[in-house]
């Protein structure tokens, strides 16, 4: 618990970014030294930058790194572009649109040699980034990344007879590990409940339909831009095994690491454990970490003690 009166060191601003010739007002939050290596952090489908709030306040990481987390257009505080009649069409994300947005944002913020990190849709897009823009980032961290993640482009996620506020959240409930603390799992769901109508489903068009690298992994230039595929043990959409196969398919420059006892929203479902895992990955990028990364990182490896599974609801003895 923070003390009364604590003001967190996160700052939020808006930057105007031209994407496909259209002006977008993009919200981003940041913390860390201005001359620190930027880490551009991408939220998951239908969510917003608040998923990264515990990385933005990690004292150790923000001592060296300028952590930046943005809201994609139509998400969080990035309102739809005011010059477009966006209400006349379904929002639908594609790999092309997604990569153009990320590169335009990195350019607008004048980021030099940034590290890119994203989870879920933000993890998958590392393959397109390493294919189409291998010289824009110094390294790519694909959390919950796979060559193919079918089956989640579901009509019920945007349907007038379904409470999509809750459904879009709790369809993701089991993507998190039971070992993750209840309060942070619930907060992740709360963030999902903030999504605009149809946006989660529209992002999933990219995630489950548009994105398919099963026969194109040879095009992913991880030899030019190191690629870390880092998947949680409880991620049933892109398993650690999927991550391993994807990295093997890419070849030189791609490394797969499994994160034990965590799921598909590592940065928000269990921030303490994820931030400790991330320090190992960052250490490998900078060369400060001795030896190769293990194929599996465990809580013991990074000195994190797990909480017992959720607050027990003991029944009164009658």
């Amino acid at each position: 618990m923070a003390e009364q009166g604590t003001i967190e060191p996160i700052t939020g601003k808006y930057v105007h970014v031209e994407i496909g010739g259209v002006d977008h007002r993009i919200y981003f939050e940041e913390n860390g030294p201005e001359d620190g290596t930027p880490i551009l952090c991408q939220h998951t489908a239908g969510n917003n930058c608040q998923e990264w709030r515990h990385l933005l306040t990690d004292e150790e990481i923000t001592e060296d790194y300028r952590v930046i987390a943005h809201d994609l257009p139509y998400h969080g505080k990035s309102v739809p572009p005011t010059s477009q009649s966006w209400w006349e069409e379904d929002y639908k994300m594609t790999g092309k649109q997604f990569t153009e947005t990320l590169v335009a944002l990195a350019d607008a913020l004048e980021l030099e040699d940034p590290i890119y990190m994203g989870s879920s849709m933000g993890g998958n897009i590392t393959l397109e980034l390493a294919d189409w823009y291998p010289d824009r980032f110094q390294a790519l961290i694909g959390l919950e990344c796979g060559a193919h993640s079918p089956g989640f482009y579901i009509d019920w996620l945007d349907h007038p007879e379904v409470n999509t506020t809750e459904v879009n959240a709790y369809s993701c409930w089991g993507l998190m590990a039971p070992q993750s603390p209840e309060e942070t799992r619930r907060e992740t769901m709360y963030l999902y409940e903030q999504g605009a109508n149809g946006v989660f489903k529209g992002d999933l068009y990219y995630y489950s339909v548009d994105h398919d690298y099963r026969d194109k992994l040879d095009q992913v230039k991880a030899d030019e831009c190191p690629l870390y595929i880092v998947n949680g043990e409880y991620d049933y959409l892109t398993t650690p095994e999927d991550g391993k196969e994807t990295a093997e398919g890419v070849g030189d420059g791609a490394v797969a690491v499994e994160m034990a006892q965590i799921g598909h929203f590592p940065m928000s479902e269990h921030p303490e454990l994820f931030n400790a895992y991330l320090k190992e990955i960052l250490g490998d990028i900078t060369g400060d970490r001795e030896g190769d990364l293990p194929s599996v990182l465990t809580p013991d490896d990074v000195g994190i003690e797990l909480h017992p599974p959720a607050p027990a609801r003991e029944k009164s003895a009658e």
Partner: protein
Amino acid sequence: MNDTEFASHEWWENYKETVNSDPEMQVRGHDKFSDNFYVEIGEERFLIQMQNGTVQEILPNPALNNRWSFGVEGDREAWEEFVQETPPAFNHEIVASHYRSAVRNEDGHLMMRGDNKKIFQNLRPFQRALDLMRVANNNGGS
């Protein structure tokens, strides 16, 4: 640990109490959950009759006189994994388990059956009711 045998009459009675004393089943609209669902464990089927977010009755072997909107099917081993205090990956929640069966064609998981629209209309209270099988089985947890 609940010392009654999993899915025995006593076990289900304890489950009913667990659901009916769960605060989350009575908030956020979950008190409108009135669709019956079945749980099929191997060859055995149990009908969970729901009214306003509470379990009214649990009937073994439902038949022609009974109604349900949807159900969950799996072998006993998958269910025993599901109700463990810390369940193993992919049998730790219903959508996870269903996905590994339906999309990835793997064995050893649970499948949702029935009216998909009603499943999604009631997703959270249904999911919570299933998760409460774990709470009932372990006398706590979530």
